[in-house]
């Protein structure tokens, strides 16, 4: 079993008006096999948390820590974090010119595993995973995310999740932009990955719909750069009914 531990994390970004603190003391412990959902209003810092865990250079950690089984994640470069078993399915996956999906997937897999995958089984694995996610075979020869529709990009993120087999996955609004069928197909992909690899999941979402397919063990309400409340799956339903008013209206 592995543990990803975030302790009193403070993060700021440089803006034209100077430094701006976005995360104001986030603490969270995720163990492999667990699913944590994070819900919260727009701009509350959910993507900031996800990107900070992945190591995006835009975010500066001013205090606090992130550790993976005790190892200091903040000391690791972006690629080292991925090789240590972390994966971020991005809210807005990036289009990379010049690199075919096939080439990209194989290079990444080789980097993560430290050895090149056996060609025959790898080709088969990719094909199977693509079929399961209903991704057309021609995507393999296209450039990474280039010209993919919003929903297609999200599927391809989950394709990578299935192929790279991380210990911890952060899914940043993977459900946004998916049609009803795609939501199901993608959720199944996440569940498969979770079963097969005992993956720990941090699922950022605005909707309870995806939580019907991917059952959260914990739900965290994220408000103004902090976790305002935690609970079980029932908290999500309550949020859907009540919205975030009671968190936002609390006098400081």
């Amino acid at each position, binding site marked *: 079993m592995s543990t990803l531990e975030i302790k009193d994390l403070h993060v700021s970004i440089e803006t034209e008006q100077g430094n701006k603190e976005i995360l104001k003391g986030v603490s969270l412990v995720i163990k492999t096999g667990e699913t944590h959902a994070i819900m919260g209003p727009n701009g509350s810092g959910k993507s900031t948390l996800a990107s900070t865990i992945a190591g995006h250079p835009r975010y500066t950690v001013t205090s606090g820590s992130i550790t993976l089984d005790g190892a200091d994640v903040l000391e690791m470069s972006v690629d080292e974090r*991925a090789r240590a078993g972390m994966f971020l399915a991005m809210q807005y996956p*990036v289009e990379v*010119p010049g690199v075919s999906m096939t080439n990209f997937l194989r290079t990444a897999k080789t980097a993560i595993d430290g050895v090149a995958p056996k060609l025959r089984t790898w080709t088969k694995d990719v094909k199977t995973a693509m079929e399961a996610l209903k991704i057309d075979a021609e995507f393999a020869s296209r*450039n990474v995310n280039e010209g993919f529709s919003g929903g297609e990009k999200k599927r391809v993120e989950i394709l990578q999740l299935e192929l790279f087999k991380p210990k911890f996955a952060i899914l940043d609004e993977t459900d946004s932009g998916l049609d009803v069928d795609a939501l199901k197909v993608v959720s199944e992909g996440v569940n498969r990955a979770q079963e097969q690899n005992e993956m720990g999941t941090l699922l950022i979402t605005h909707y309870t719909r995806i939580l019907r397919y991917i059952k959260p063990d914990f739900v965290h309400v994220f408000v103004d750069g902090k976790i305002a409340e935690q609970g079980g799956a029932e908290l999500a339903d309550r949020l859907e009914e009540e919205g975030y008013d009671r968190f936002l209206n609390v006098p400081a």
Partner: protein
Amino acid sequence: MTDTATHLTGEKARIGAPSISGFTEEGENLSPLNAAEVSSPIGGDAVKAHSHGGGAGIPDSSRAGRKTSYNVEDFPVLTGREEDFRFTPLKRMGGLHKNELTGVAPALTVEGANVSTLETVAMTDARVGSAGIPEDRISANAWKHAAEAKIVTIPANSTGEQVTLTYTGTSLEAAASHMVVIAEANSESVVVIDHVGSAVLAQNIEFDIRQGAKLTVISLQAWAEEAIHASSHLAKVGKDAHLKHIAVTYGGNLVRMTPSAHFDGEGGEVELFGLYFADAGQHLEHRLFVDHATENCKSNVLYKGALQGKDAHTVWVGDVLIRKEAKGTNSYEANRNLVLTEGARADSVPNLEIETGLIDGAGHASTTGRFDDEHLFYLMSRGIDEKTARRLVVRGFLNEIVQQIRVPEIEERLAETIERELAATDS
């Protein structure tokens, strides 16, 4: 691709100009019908409307009206405002466009000639000028000053010849050179023309590709840093002949290449490929011209360029002219650029003129993408280290051209060059 750095100059681009300024995604394949629709304003009014009047009555906006002459005096003195020189920094041309070119031309060595022959002849030899006429002042100036001409002949019906001609420059005095490559009827061959060392050179290379011949030309501009090179490639493509021309440019301070292909009989086919890699301060310009003046010919153009470093500047202009008599033409041209760092600039102007509706197809495309921190972050977030990520992007991008070369030694050399260029960005 996220950002774009294409500078498309709509004024001249006609069909080439995209409706969204600065960016084209894919070229449209004009059906014969559409082509007929657009043909009149292109061939007719546009020519007059855009005439700059800079050169006594020469309508420089249509390739059909562009001056050609063996005589340098027929071309007006260059100001840099001409259509075909507006991107070229004349101050950095080393005088190639205006001075006497009396320096020592780079020495030419030959390797791998089995059946082909190399002769040195006077510029008055009948074969000189048999395949082309200068299309700009520098080319005409080179013609005037070339002391001699080299003639490479690939005998009729021969197959498998692969000859490497290496120009090695040792002087920075402005010089001129001339070569004629004759691919005799039904021959099949590969000619590699390599440029190394230092030179300030204006050059003409004619390619006479006779009936049924298949010629692959790989021209490498691999000069040392300070070189200045204006190179005009003039090809005459005979009946059922095939030219595959690959320009590879990464060396030199300023390189301006103008490959142009003219069909001289039905059934000809031309493929023009190019790969360029510009570093800080380099100006690498490729202006090609495909002149469809006969029926049922095919042309396909693809140039790809990578740029990095402050003031790296590349220019690509693709003139494709489908004349009234060129029925049954099939033509496509594309230019793709990848900008790796800030401060580099790629100009890209596809320029397609169609004067007949009776064609099979014609299209163009131009894209410029930027490799930025977000791309890097994405790849690294999948475990790929920074160096590998950069390599992946650049190699993947250029590979489409590299694999056209099919000469293992050159492919290897290019792979090493790309590695070396990338190592420079890493630091």
